[in-house]
């Protein structure tokens, strides 16, 4: 993979993304593979945070890519591929949530805990600091508070912080005006503050030190 056409976090730059989309529109499987590889982990993380179910996440991600590539011929080059993909992914997440609530399904918290323990294994010295027991408790508390947010607020927070999208881009994904996105972000932050201001409030100073050091 040509790293020079990717940003530091593995994301494709605009020119390279455009080139790959055009090649994929012509049926180039290599370009299609690169497009998928560049977006699969980001979409997977977003969908997993929305659904919290490994099986559903895999299914939704695959369906999102299939739909995106099925309609690739009509792709509007004024938008980023990720915006389009996350738009499809978000709609599929909402459908899945609706279906799950209709069928009385539940989130697999056991799998979540097991996965978190496995993926949180420290890989180097700086990670070891961030993954101390105290930091892990706080991260769990934060993600727990994120899970308690309503779907639009959760999606807004994830796209804003993780995907670093602007309110305008988030509005395109969630199909709502940018002002509404700002409102969701404001309410989400207020809810996070409210949910996290209890027992863990005294530990914020240490966490601030750790995250700033990382």
């Amino acid at each position: 993979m040509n790293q020079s056409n990717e940003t530091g976090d593995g994301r494709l730059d605009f020119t390279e993304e455009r080139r790959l989309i055009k090649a994929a529109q012509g049926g180039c499987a290599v370009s299609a593979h690169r497009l998928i590889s560049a977006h699969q982990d980001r979409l997977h993380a977003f969908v997993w945070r929305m659904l919290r179910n490994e099986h559903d996440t895999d299914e939704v991600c695959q369906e999102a890519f299939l739909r995106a590539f099925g309609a690739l011929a009509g792709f509007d080059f004024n938008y980023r591929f990720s915006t389009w993909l996350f738009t499809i992914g978000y709609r599929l997440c909402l459908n899945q949530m609706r279906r799950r609530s209709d069928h009385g399904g539940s989130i697999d918290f056991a799998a979540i805990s097991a996965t978190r323990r496995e993926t949180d294994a420290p890989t180097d010295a700086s990670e070891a600091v961030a993954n101390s027991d105290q930091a892990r408790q706080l991260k769990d508390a934060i993600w727990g508070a994120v899970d308690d947010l309503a779907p639009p607020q959760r999606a807004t927070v994830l796209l804003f912080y993780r995907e670093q999208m602007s309110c305008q881009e988030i509005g395109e994904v969630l199909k709502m005006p940018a002002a509404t996105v700002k409102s969701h972000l404001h309410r989400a932050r207020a809810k996070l503050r409210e949910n996290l201001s209890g027992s863990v409030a005294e530990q914020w100073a240490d966490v601030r030190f750790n995250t700033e050091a990382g």
Partner: protein
Amino acid sequence: MALTCRNVQHLHDAYLDSDLSASMIAEVDAHLLQCPECQRQIDMVRVCGNVISRDQSEPRAADDFAARVLSALPRQRAAAPAPVVLLTRRQSRRVVLERVAAGFIPAMAAMIGLSLLVFPAATDHSTSPDRQVGRVLGESATRTAVSPTLALGVQDIVSPTLSSIDNASRAVGDLQDFAGLTLRDAREQLAASANPPAAPAEDAFSGAFLMQMLHPLLGVVSPVPTEPAPAQTDDVVRF
């Protein structure tokens, strides 16, 4: 005037998103230095943002995820109940033209045959109605010895009839010419579309007229499954 805690709470989001002016940021910073509670509130949201953006503890997609998606693309199409090859507008027009031409030729042949049967002398355009009437009346006069006045009266009645018959025969002749021209142009269009380097026969009036006549039909049967999909290769994906 120094900001109060309530003022700062209203400015939380703008402060975190750097949407404040430099002077306002300085005002908020001054308040945060002397207010631990507001500082903690701001830190709480900031740390939340840091964790959400940096903590990638989610399970990652499977290593073969991209390959699975790619392999599912052709399978998805194969699983469709009726595989439809989406042709371009030009291809679909050609297909429809072929089908219509196949039915059009026998129909026109039947029409021409019927017209020849009904109007056996219609092809003789050089014969004017007056000459025919004169010949008929002349023969009648010699056979039955009718008076010229009566013959002229009969001519007044018969002449418009024969004239209209002659007009009809001319119309049939024109229709034959038109049909021949149209079919020839249609064949040329088919040959031109089958052979891309050939110049398109867009200037043929009759061809354009036929296309205009067939336009509603083209709209109805636009996606036609005629050409078989090309064989799938490993490095090409059909979307």
